[in-house]
């Protein structure tokens, strides 16, 4: 089409101009409707004398949350209570994603095994987990934990000072202090440093062609910072021993049955999906790759690890992203079995303040933000994996 003419009417027939025009109109419509809804809702709320705004976030929450990774008291604000809920959501999601990845990889490979019993068992595992709603499994795992393990007063002592009951698993813990946090931070620093050093040495080795052993430098980078931190900060080693009380076992650190049931439920359900993704990924790698690997003398396990899985990852990563996303979002089912996640704290907040629109807006934003973060990270990782392609 001739686009040289400047007549506005002719311009309308330009495919590119029209494409842009449609998008502008669509965005304007969405923004316009949004503004209209927002304006009307605020006006109606004001007419009905319903408190609006986010001022309530700075008021004291006045309720306890039984599990928290940051210091939280009932006199802290609603905002902090919501943060506690968010951290609980993130915490259980991270573990569930890790559990589902490991289990999924194993089951996915087992599905392709030449051993008929193994592949059949893997098939049953996948089908049983994929075809029943997650919520029912959560109820099931929770009911099992609560029914199988004895009440806290009759807790099993499985190791010295380690107790197991339907109140959870209780193990001795360190009396945590800022010195411990320092050591932990420097250990993380050490791991990062070790990776940096290792990859720098590898680059040099490739460039120079000289094979000097890298491991002493890597070990130094890995262990140096934490050892230095221990010497400098000298953290005390005070142990919180669990002790039987009248109702509970106090002291130590407790893994609650609610957390366990949610972790197991989310992790197992997602692992069935991951297994199918892994299976599809492995099947996508051409037969010739196996044969070629065998021809150069690799055995099966090496072939899988060095030849097939790296190539399969390209197919695996995109659907894996959506599996991770649903695991994260499904963690909101926690409320059914009493795990204090973001939705539970948010519900309590909405009920106490009556400000439901704000409450729902907050947790929609948080879930949206977290989902986008996971997507971006996985896209970045996918781009890295995809670069392997020639």
């Amino acid at each position, binding site marked *: 089409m001739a686009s040289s003419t400047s007549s506005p009417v002719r311009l309308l027939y330009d495919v590119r101009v029209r494409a842009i025009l449609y998008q502008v109109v669509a965005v304007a419509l969405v923004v316009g409707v949004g503004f209209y*809804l927002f304006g*009307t*809702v605020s006006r*109606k*709320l004001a*007419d*009905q*004398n*319903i*408190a609006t705004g986010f001022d309530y976030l700075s008021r004291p929450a*006045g*309720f*306890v*949350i*039984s599990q928290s990774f940051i210091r939280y008291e*009932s006199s802290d604000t609603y905002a902090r209570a919501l943060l506690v809920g968010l951290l609980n959501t993130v915490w259980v999601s991270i573990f569930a994603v890790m559990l589902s990845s490991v289990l999924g990889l194993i089951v996915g490979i087992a599905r392709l095994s030449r051993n008929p019993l193994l592949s059949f068992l893997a098939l049953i595992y996948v089908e049983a987990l994929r075809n029943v709603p997650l919520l029912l499994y959560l*109820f099931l795992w*929770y*009911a099992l934990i*609560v*029914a199988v393990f*004895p*009440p*806290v007063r009759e807790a099993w002592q499985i190791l010295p000072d380690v107790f197991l009951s*339907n*109140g959870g698993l209780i193990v001795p813990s360190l009396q945590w202090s800022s010195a411990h946090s320092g050591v932990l931070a420097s250990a993380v620093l050490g791991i990062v440093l070790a990776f940096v050093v290792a990859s720098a040495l590898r680059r040099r080795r490739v460039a120079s062609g000289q094979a000097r052993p890298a491991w002493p430098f890597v070990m130094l980078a890995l262990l140096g910072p934490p050892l230095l931190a221990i010497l400098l900060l000298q953290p005390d080693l005070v142990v919180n021993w669990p002790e039987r*009380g*009248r*109702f*509970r076992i*106090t002291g130590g650190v407790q893994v*609650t*049955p*609610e957390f366990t049931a949610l972790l197991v439920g989310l992790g197992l359900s997602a692992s069935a999906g991951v297994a199918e993704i892994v299976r599809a990924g492995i099947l996508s790698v051409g037969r010739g790759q196996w044969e070629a690997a065998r021809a150069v003398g690799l055995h099966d396990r090496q072939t899988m690890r060095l030849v097939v899985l790296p190539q399969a990852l390209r197919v695996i990563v995109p659907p894996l992203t959506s599996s991770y996303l649903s695991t994260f*979002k499904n963690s*909101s*089912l926690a*409320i*059914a*079995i*009493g795990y*204090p996640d973001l*939705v*539970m704290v948010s*519900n*309590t907040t*909405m*009920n*106490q*303040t*009556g400000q*439901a*629109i704000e*409450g*729902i807006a907050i*947790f*929609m934003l948080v*879930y949206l933000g977290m989902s986008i973060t996971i997507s971006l990270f996985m896209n970045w990782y996918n781009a890295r994996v995809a670069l392997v392609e020639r």
Partner: protein
Amino acid sequence: MFCKLAALGLAAAAFSVFAAPASAQATLDAVKKRGKVLCGVSPTSAGFSYADDKGVRQGFDSDVCRAVSSAVFGAPDKVEFVPLNTNIRFQGLQSGEVDLLSRQTTMTFSRDTSLGLDFAPIVFYDGQGLMVSTKLGVKSAGELSQAAICLLPGTTTLQNLEDYFKPRNIKYEAVVFEDNNEWRNAFFSGRCDVITSDRSDLASVRAVANDPKQFVILPETISKEPLAPVVRQNDSNWRDIVSWTVNALIAAEEYGVNKGNIDEQLKSKDPEVQRLLGVTGDLGKMLNLDVKWAYNAIKQNGNYGEIFERSLGEKTALGLSRGPNQLWNKGGLIYSPPFR
């Protein structure tokens, strides 16, 4: 859960945009035009509002709705019951989805002042209690240090617990369930040492236990839970109708007017009874209702005492004694202002 809540929130927002009545004063007109009262009740609460095997709502709260229907329409069945859970009950009322909320709702300062709501008179004086297994040998709430406590979210329950235990320096583990069944099961299976809720609610939990005698409700009442019907703010005519219907049921019990004897009572010499039943005066007109509004409410539903005994009383599964819900002149707190 997340999606459901989000959808409800959006629905509530959308309702408040499109469905709220144009003028706040118009509830009675809207109700008459529609031909029925929309009444928000709890989905399943034994004794207060639950659907029986024929699907008919039974219980104390639903009967309050029926009494309002009788007062407005002269018939108790012009009610449409809308089950609302604790999370969305206020939005349901604010948005105009219901005309009246009659569902075990505690009257509190902040709800009254900041939610665009008004409360009718208190119909049930409840309080939060704690129930434990008799095996624990616990005699009072003060002994509950380090106990795990199962509770439901959303009401004032969680804050009351903290308000009661914190000054006494009692630490506890709170396990909060959204689901009623999980909540009860966690307690019965020993996950929690204590279960807490309004005392009337604990009575219904105990009623469904395998062996109710194994459980005891501790003597402490750790909060005041005055339950009252709720209406939207700024519609004083509608609020008067709901309030005085409740008062009429209470006054009827006080003056010995009940379902059976109400027609004889029309001939009563007591001037207050005469005004209440519309024999003299024009109280009905002042509410923009029929002169027989209170007569119908009592005749068709029974007085306060009859409604209480039918749903919650000692002969029911809940087996509650009147306690503070006895009339003021019999040692309780139930009291109606005069009909004059």
